[in-house]
């Protein structure tokens, strides 16, 4: 642990933390396991892009399916489990009393992960739904919506029974994410898989879901962690905090409207793309507020803060780039190329995952009341994962811009395009190798920390430096 111990940390580990240890560790552990599995699948798909024959004879892992498996394990395996752990912990902390109804969370976690595993086998054997962000077959989706709601129970109870009259930004984002996913999951599967709407309306509804899952579910989960951890690691109050609620509601009301940028030039009504530009322009206000509130992250110290600085920078960048690519002239070059993949990876890996890593790094020692088993592994993960993400984004952008240029020239064949982007794709493969190695380090470190019941529990005072008075620093 790199935090410098001081005398002021007596209340740093509270019963709130240790009480929820088991359920939260179960969520984080499942998340990390899925992250590693997703990393292996990412490697397979990246190799397939460069060498199409790779594993082509295996029907379960043909490129289209491997791609859907990678995406589903990443979103519903890693991001969902880890994000729920962060949200529950934040709500418990700010609610002021130990989490109640934790059995619901444990049962929910088991059902969620079982349903996901069944769904993945379904994708591999030919039941893939075919909609981006929602590739899981329809027979597991109702169970997943209910399991998610069960996991959310302790968080909602902590929100309803909170001791303080005042609420904090971290709480708004966490509660919003807990409520919204079951709603959007139910609304999307209804119109896509149970009572499918007609023709291209399906594509529009799928785009709505993908954008809502990102702006109303994943981004709020990540921001809940960031809004909680940043003031603590910086040891300062958040500046311009009065704007935080406006920033929150801007995201909630406008976020899902910005998905139309994926449909520019397609067989859909033009107003969908126009609404995306309008909503995206106004949404810049949200990103500005996040920047103003959390700019104190620059002065914070510790490993967790380093992850979070990376994640916040990526998050702001996503906001700007999403707006930029909503314009038709920009979309023309980005659409259908690796540039679009790069933007998605910037959001899901660079922003959300890095913010989760930071929050997890901060909370695991607090719920286990012992430091990370190995400071070396922790630092190694952070360095490797940061480099991995940067290499991934650079390689994807290089591949994407080459591809965009060649696609515009009708004389260039697809065989030639594949050949010309071979080198950047090699970069993508090495980036996924780095990320897989990094996440294995994190998994090992986490298991050592979580399972070290025999080791001596350390006095909290020696672990943390944050003064307890900063608990409610959000005001």
């Amino acid at each position: 642990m790199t935090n410098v111990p001081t005398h002021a940390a007596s209340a740093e580990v509270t019963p709130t933390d240790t009480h929820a240890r088991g359920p939260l560790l179960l969520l984080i552990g499942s998340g990390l396991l899925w992250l590693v599995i997703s990393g292996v699948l990412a490697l397979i798909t990246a190799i397939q892009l460069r060498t199409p024959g790779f594993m082509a004879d295996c029907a379960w892992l043909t490129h289209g399916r491997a791609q859907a498996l990678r995406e589903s394990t990443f979103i519903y395996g890693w991001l969902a489990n880890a994000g729920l752990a962060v949200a529950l912990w934040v709500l418990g902390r700010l609610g002021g009393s130990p989490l109640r109804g934790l059995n619901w969370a444990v049962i929910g976690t088991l059902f969620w992960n079982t349903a996901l595993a069944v769904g993945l086998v379904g994708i591999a054997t030919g039941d893939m739904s075919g909609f981006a962000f929602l590739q899981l077959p329809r027979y597991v989706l109702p169970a997943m919506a209910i399991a998610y709601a069960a996991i959310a129970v302790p968080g909602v109870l902590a929100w309803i029974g909170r001791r303080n009259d005042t609420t904090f930004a971290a709480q708004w984002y966490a509660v919003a994410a807990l409520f919204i996913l079951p709603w959007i999951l139910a609304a999307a599967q209804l119109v896509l898989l149970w009572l499918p709407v007609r023709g291209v309306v399906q594509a529009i509804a799928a785009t709505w879901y993908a954008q809502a899952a990102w702006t109303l579910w994943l981004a709020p989960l990540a921001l809940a962690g960031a809004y909680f951890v940043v003031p603590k690691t910086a040891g300062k109050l958040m500046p311009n905090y009065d704007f935080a609620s406006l920033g929150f509601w801007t995201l909630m009301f406008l976020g899902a409207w910005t998905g139309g940028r994926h449909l520019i030039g397609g067989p859909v009504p033009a107003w969908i793309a126009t609404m995306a530009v309008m909503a995206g322009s106004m949404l810049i206000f949200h990103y500005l507020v996040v920047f103003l509130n959390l700019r104190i992250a620059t002065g914070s110290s510790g490993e967790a803060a380093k992850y979070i600085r990376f994640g916040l920078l990526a998050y702001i960048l996503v906001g700007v780039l999403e707006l930029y690519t909503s314009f038709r002239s920009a979309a023309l070059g980005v659409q259908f190329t690796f540039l679009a993949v790069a933007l998605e990876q910037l959001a899901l890996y660079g922003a959300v995952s890095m913010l989760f890593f930071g929050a997890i790094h901060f909370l695991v020692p607090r719920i286990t009341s012992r430091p990370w088993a190995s400071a070396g592994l922790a630092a190694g993960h952070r360095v490797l994962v940061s480099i991995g993400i940067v290499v991934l984004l650079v390689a994807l952008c290089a591949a994407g811009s080459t591809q965009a240029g060649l696609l515009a020239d009708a004389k260039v064949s697809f065989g030639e395009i594949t050949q010309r982007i071979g080198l950047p794709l090699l970069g993508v493969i090495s980036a996924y190798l780095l990320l897989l190695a990094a996440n294995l380090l994190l998994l090992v470190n986490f298991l050592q920390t979580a399972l070290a019941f025999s080791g001596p529990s350390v006095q909290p005072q020696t672990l943390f430096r944050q003064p307890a008075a900063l608990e409610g620093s959000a005001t």
Partner: protein
Amino acid sequence: MKNGPVFFFGLLAAVGISWGGIVLGSHYQLGSLAPYYDDTQGNAFPLRPQGVASRGQLVYADLGCASCHTQQVRRPGFGADQARGWGERQSVARDYIFQAKPQLGVARLGPDLMNYGGRIEKEKGPAAADAIYQFLYAGSAAHPAYKFLFDDKAIDGQRSTKALAASPAGRQIVPSERAQTLVAYLLNSNTTYDYPEARPFTVAAKKEEAKK
């Protein structure tokens, strides 16, 4: 933010408005889009695909073909879709009304397949189906082979009429039922009819309309 119910209903409204606006709004606009009846041809377009071709779309979807191929032609002048020969006009919502699961696609690692059937039939004539089977079986430098869609078996008695021409001596490579529906679907992909809404918008056309 102190008021729990207001917060809750605020969230509900935020999600509900976006869902209502985008999903229900476009459903209201396009959900009851009817085929276009052309008096001069005495037929309504798009033509309803045959059963086997419809089922092929589900094979296309479950193999994830859409992760590399789009099925949407953008308007002339917006991208090189027309120059690449993918279609003379842009794709419009009416093209998809009989499709169970429209596969608009997200990436173009391979060509657009909106009019693939029409293209390959023009090129290969009656041998088009064989050409697609052969390509699916053997793959290329930029496309994986889908050998698991075929049965490679010894010739037992008579050779199957569906066996690939390029089967090795003494053996026959027969497309599975899934491969047959997929190819029927691909051959069926052709949007020839020029709907009024698909014509490029020009100032001249607008003036003409104003005169009427």
